[in-house]
């Protein structure tokens, strides 16, 4: 087991900087996902950890050992590739045995390890086959087997599930989590699928444009996204983001935009009056309560819930999640309320940071916390109504 530490790691390809001074401290036995859109530097980061790319500057440590200049084979890691990268001319058994062979493990021992791994992954029947004779799911398991067989310090997984169909993907997610629990090894998992990252990880490193945006447990990333990018990237349907103006009255802040004026209570010290962005998750929008006017545009029924797309009086769009029993018709004029404790305020710009007070700090001063909203008619905010019970 090993901790993985990135310190100020920077990677340039010519004039393009793929990773800007990354600091990341992964603890022993942790399952960490590197999550982000394509081109965010997550795969480059993983390849640097694997030794397939070398950082332009900064240092990478695995288990207190500086690995910057070590070849991939000397780092005691194993990697599962998106394409599986099985050696086409070798049988399943030879594929799994290859890492052992390259480390000079005696043949008898190789065979024993291969058999044990095959049993673990239910590959025993397939050992003599060639990769092209296997289904996608089986190939995936062989790739996993080749990584497991050597019992490395760190497992690196580069979007290993993205080539599987949805059903198998769900199944393999559970398998991987179980495997991680059983082995207790450090795993670094690259994905662009936030659902995978949310369901499997101990912590998620959200990346964008080669920079780390947030590194926190899934629940925290969801509930307290560090900035606007993280907020928009995590969650399905995505968090609604509305641009507007933030105004201050003593300790209390108000967010204003067309069709919406909202008292958001106290904010962090970094908050500034002026342009800002309000974010609210679909499950924190209540239809049929409160006093904000909106029109139902589209209703998506998924069976266990409905996703309702709303348009505010000022033209802003809002997404709400309701139970399957609540039926709203397109075109219907409704009143909505936003869950007071769950609106987010972000600074300006696509990566504007979150200005809400941290959860722990919010709990302390109770009275000023209730978030209220007023119809846009009142610029002074005198007709304050409670949004939530």
């Amino acid at each position, binding site marked *: 087991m090993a901790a993985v530490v990135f310190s100020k790691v920077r990677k340039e390809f010519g004039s393009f900087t793929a990773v800007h001074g990354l600091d990341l401290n992964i603890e022993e036995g942790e399952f960490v996902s590197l999550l982000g859109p394509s081109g965010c530097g997550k795969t480059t980061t993983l390849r640097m950890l*694997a030794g*397939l790319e070398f950082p332009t500057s900064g240092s990478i440590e695995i288990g207190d050992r500086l690995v910057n200049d070590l070849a991939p084979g000397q780092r005691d*890691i194993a990697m599962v590739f998106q*394409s599986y990268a099985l*050696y*086409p*001319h070798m049988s399943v058994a030879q594929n799994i045995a*290859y890492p052992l062979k390259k480390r000079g493990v005696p043949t008898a021992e190789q065979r024993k390890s291969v058999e044990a791994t095959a049993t673990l992954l239910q590959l025993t029947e397939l050992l003599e086959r060639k990769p092209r004779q296997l289904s996608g799911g089986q190939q995936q398991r062989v790739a996993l087997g080749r990584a497991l067989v050597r019992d490395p310090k760190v497992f690196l997984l580069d979007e290993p599930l993205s080539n599987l169909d949805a059903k198998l993907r769900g199944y393999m997610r559970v398998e991987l989590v179980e495997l991680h629990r059983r082995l207790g090894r450090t795993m670094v998992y690259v994905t662009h699928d936030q659902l995978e990252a949310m369901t499997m990880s101990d912590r998620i490193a959200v990346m964008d444009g080669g920079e780390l945006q947030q590194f926190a447990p899934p629940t925290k990333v969801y509930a307290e996204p560090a900035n606007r990018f993280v907020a928009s990237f995590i969650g399905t349907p995505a968090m609604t983001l509305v641009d507007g103006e933030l105004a201050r009255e003593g300790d209390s802040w108000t967010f204003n935009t067309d069709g919406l004026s909202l008292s958001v209570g106290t904010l962090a010290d970094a908050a500034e009056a002026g342009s800002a962005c309000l974010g609210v998750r679909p499950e924190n929008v209540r239809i049929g309560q409160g006093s904000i006017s909106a029109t139902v545009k589209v209703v998506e029924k998924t069976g266990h819930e409905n996703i309702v797309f709303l348009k505010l009086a000022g033209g802003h769009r809002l997404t709400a999640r309701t139970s399957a029993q609540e039926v709203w018709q397109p075109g219907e004029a409704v009143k909505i309320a936003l869950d007071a404790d769950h609106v987010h305020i972000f600074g300006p710009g696509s990566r504007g940071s979150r200005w809400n007070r941290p959860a722990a700090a919010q709990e302390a001063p109770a009275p000023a916390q209730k978030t209220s909203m007023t119809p846009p008619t009142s610029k002074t905010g005198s007709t304050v109504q409670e949004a939530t019970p």
Partner: protein
Amino acid sequence: MAFIKKLGFNLFAWAIVLAVAFPLFWMLVTSVKPAFELFRRPPTMLPETFTFEHYLRLIERTNFLTYFRNSVILSTATTIVVVAIGTLGAYSLVRFKFRGRESLAFLVLFTYLLPSVVLIIPLYLLLVQIGLANNIFSLVIAYTTFALPYALWLLRSFMAGIPEDLESAALVDGASRMGAFVDVILPQLLPGIISTALFTFILSWNEYLYALVLVNSDDARPLTTGVMNMLVSSFNIEWSLLMAASVMMSVPLIIVFAFLQSYLTRGFGAGGVKG
């Protein structure tokens, strides 16, 4: 209608096969006819009496075996050199990123812009200067110069079809760069290597012009110039011996082809895009 179409197609195809195969058949037949039967009119399709005396004469009383040995050494050496340089060159052109990589690849093809006649004299002078004239190895060098560019391009397209992840996986699994090349890249490249090897071998085996200009001593002559020099003179052509020599010159190629034909067709099909 479909039947007529099929019949027409078959007739056409067989006509081409016949046109290609007849000279080969005639070569074989002529080589086993006794001399007196050669010029008989009307010609005999199949020989009335079979004889292998031409073959015996060729082997026992001429330098044929020396030429044959020279050709084998020359073609094998050229093939090894071209495949070795071509494989490593293609690897570096595909895997390593450096400035001018594409230009370099195109520059290599420039050799083909110049007719070989133009290159012969400079090459000859060059080989004389380094003391290699009149030597089999001068031909190895000469053939390498014009087989290598094509080999490089053929292998490059094969190499580009091998996923980089395979090599990365081998590196992570503990192989050195050379180890990954040998364990993973080479087996994947095998069809390409075989196509290239065949192309180079046939080219060196059949080459005439350079052999004529660069090698004058009888000890170093390959089959093509050796046989011509020995059997074709201004006044006489030894048809029987010439045909027997031609048959024996073709045999190695036919054997090599028979074994590797499936690789060759697969190679030409798979060169561009890997299925």
